[in-house]
C-alpha cells in the first residue's frame, strides 16, 4: 500500500532565547494567517496533529507548532543537567516571542492550551498590539496546587508512568480511547522533571492576580474555550476569567484538558467558528 502522506512539514532551527542558543523543532502546514499553537506542560507539538491536518483550517491559516526547548524533538540548551529545568513566566514569554520574531511572523494568532492557555493571558497584558487574536484553551488565571507534584520527578517512580497516569485522568471518559492513549503516550515520553518543571509556571510563577484587569479585549480579541471534564482549569475558573475580561467563554462538552488531542473531532466543531471570526 502506498503511504498516505500528511500535509505537515517539520524543521529544525537555531535561535537565541534570552541570549542563549537553542535548537528548536517545529511543524507547519497550510497558508495564510499565521496560527502559532502552544502545547501543554510536559508534552509536545504532536498534540496539534489534527489541526495540522484539517483542510478547512489550512485553507486560511498557516498552522505552526513548535516543541518548547526540552520537549519533543527540541533540544535542551548547552550545559543542561537533569533536574534543573524550571519554566518561568519570563522565559516562556521570551521563547514564544523569539520564535515568532525569528520566523518573521507578522501579527500571528496564538493559541495555547493549559500552560499555553495561561501564557496567552500574559501575552495579552504585555504585547496586545503584536497579535491578531489570542485563543486560550483550558485557561485559568491561577491554580492552587491540589496534589503533590514532587511525585512527577523522583528516581524511585518511573516518570513516564506517573506523568501518563496524571494526564489520563484529565481527559473525558467520552473521548475516543485511541486519541486519549496517544495524548497520554506523549506524556510518557517526556524527559525526567520536565512536566514538573513546567508546572512551576502553571501553579506558581505564572499565576495572575489582579493583572488580569489590564487585559483590553478591544486591543486584541481573546477567545477562551474550556472542556467540561477539565478539573485542572475548570469551566468555572475560565468563566470567572472571561467575566473579568468582559468576554463570553465557550464551554466544550465531552472533552477534558487536552481538547485538540484527546477528541479533535469534537474540538474542531468549536474551533472552526472562532477561526472564521478571526479570519
Amino acid at each position, binding site marked *: 500500500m502506498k503511504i498516505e502522506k500528511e500535509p505537515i512539514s517539520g524543521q529544525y532551527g537555531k535561535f537565541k532565547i534570552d541570549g542563549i542558543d537553542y535548537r528548536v523543532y517545529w511543524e507547519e502546514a497550510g497558508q495564510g494567517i499565521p496560527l502559532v499553537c502552544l502545547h501543554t506542560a510536559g508534552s509536545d507539538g504532536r498534540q496539534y496533529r489534527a489541526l495540522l491536518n484539517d483542510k478547512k483550517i489550512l485553507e486560511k491559516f498557516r498552522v505552526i507548532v513548535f516543541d518548547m526547548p526540552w520537549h519533543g524533538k527540541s533540544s535542551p540548551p548547552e550545559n543542561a543537567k537533569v533536574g534543573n529545568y524550571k519554566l518561568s513566566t519570563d522565559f516562556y514569554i521570551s521563547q514564544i516571542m523569539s520564535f515568532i520574531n525569528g520566523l518573521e511572523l507578522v501579527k500571528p494568532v496564538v493559541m495555547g492550551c493549559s500552560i499555553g492557555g495561561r501564557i496567552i493571558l500574559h501575552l495579552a497584558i504585555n504585547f496586545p498590539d503584536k497579535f491578531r487574536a489570542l485563543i486560550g484553551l483550558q485557561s485559568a488565571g491561577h491554580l492552587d496546587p491540589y*496534589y503533590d507534584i514532587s*511525585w512527577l520527578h523522583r528516581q524511585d*517512580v518511573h516518570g513516564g508512568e*506517573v506523568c501518563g*497516569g496524571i494526564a489520563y*485522568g484529565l481527559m473525558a471518559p467520552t473521548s475516543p480511547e485511541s486519541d486519549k492513549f496517544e495524548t497520554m503516550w506523549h506524556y510518557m515520553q517526556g524527559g525526567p522533571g520536565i512536566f514538573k518543571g513546567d508546572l512551576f509556571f502553571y501553579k506558581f510563577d505564572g499565576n495572575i492576580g489582579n493583572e488580569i484587569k489590564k487585559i483590553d479585549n478591544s486591543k486584541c480579541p481573546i477567545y477562551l474555550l474550556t472542556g467540561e471534564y477539565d*478539573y485542572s482549569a475548570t469551566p468555572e475558573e475560565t468563566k470567572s476569567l472571561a467575566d473579568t475580561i468582559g468576554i463570553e467563554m465557550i464551554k466544550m462538552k465531552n472533552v477534558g484538558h487536552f481538547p485538540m488531542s484527546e477528541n479533535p473531532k469534537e474540538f474542531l466543531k468549536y474551533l472552526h467558528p472562532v477561526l472564521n471570526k478571526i479570519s
Partner: protein
Amino acid sequence: MFKSLIDDNEKRSQLSIMAQYLNTSFMISTIENEYLVNIEKGVVKNVEEGPFVMPSYVFKLTAPKDEWLKFLKHTPQPGSHDIIAMLRRKVLKFEGDLHPLMSHLLYFKLLLASLRPVENKNEN
C-alpha cells in the same frame, strides 16, 4: 461495592501487565464501610469487607459512598470521573505510604474504573 474487584473481568486481567512487580494491600473506605484489597503481581487476590479490628494496609482511599457511586457510573460526570478529580474537589483523601499508588497510578485508576458497568443504563 468493591467486592467484585476479585471477579473475573477481561479489562482487569489485562491490567496485571502494568503492575507485574506490585505486591500490596490497600484499603478503600466509603466511610460507612471498608474494603481491604490484596494485590499480588498486579492481580487482585483477595477483597475483604469490613468492619475490621486491626487491618493492615499500605495506603487508604477514603470517599463518601455517594461519591464512589458517582465515580462508578458508566459515564461519570465531570469531577467524578477520576480519583485525582475527586482529590481536587476534596471529596477523596489519599493516606498512608502512597508510593505503590503513585508509581502505578494509571493501573489503580483503571483497576477502579473496571468496576464501571459496560453498558450505559440511563444512570444519570
